């Protein structure tokens, strides 16, 4: 078990925390924050996986996953801004 394996366990625990928040969150924005946490932690896991395998291909995946997470957040935000109902 190498150092990168040891570093991956807290990241998987963080993904579990984000999943718990995304399933349980009282409002839709809590779910969105949980999914944001999952996206960034999966970027970290991909980084550790690339270091373990010794390839640099996964850096492109890092860029793609980051932009996808940001676009999904912006799309949901615009949708919520345009809707008329008041949450809460």
């Amino acid at each position, binding site marked *: 078990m190498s150092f990168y394996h040891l570093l991956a366990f807290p990241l998987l625990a963080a993904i579990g*925390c984000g999943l*718990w*928040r995304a399933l349980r969150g009282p409002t839709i924005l809590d779910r969105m924050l949980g999914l944001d946490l999952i996206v960034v932690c999966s970027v970290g896991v991909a980084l550790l996986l690339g*270091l373990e395998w010794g390839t640099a291909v996964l850096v492109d995946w890092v860029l793609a996953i*980051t932009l996808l997470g940001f676009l999904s957040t912006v799309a949901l935000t615009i949708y919520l801004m345009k809707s008329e109902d008041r949450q809460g």
Partner: protein
Amino acid sequence: MTAISGLLADVLLGLGVLLMGIAAIGVVRLPDMLCRAHAVGKALTLGISLMLLGAMLRYGPAQQPKFLLAILFQFLTIPVAGHLVSLVAYRKRFPRWRPPSRQR
């Protein structure tokens, strides 16, 4: 030289994982949506940037511009996303947490 940079890369990776764990604890434990956005927007940005910096030290100079671009993307996207989510919560009057001393 290379041993020192490898050690520095490991330390940066460990610090990044620590900060991301702190962000996860904040997302689970904090009472309010705005507080959770605060945890995500700061600790998560710094954590993933430190991890990318450590990996950049590991890979060497050939991959360096791609990693710098990735760090720039993290610093551009995560705080902006957190700010947008907080803006929706403020405009649409989502429920907010009050300290117990100020509750009526």
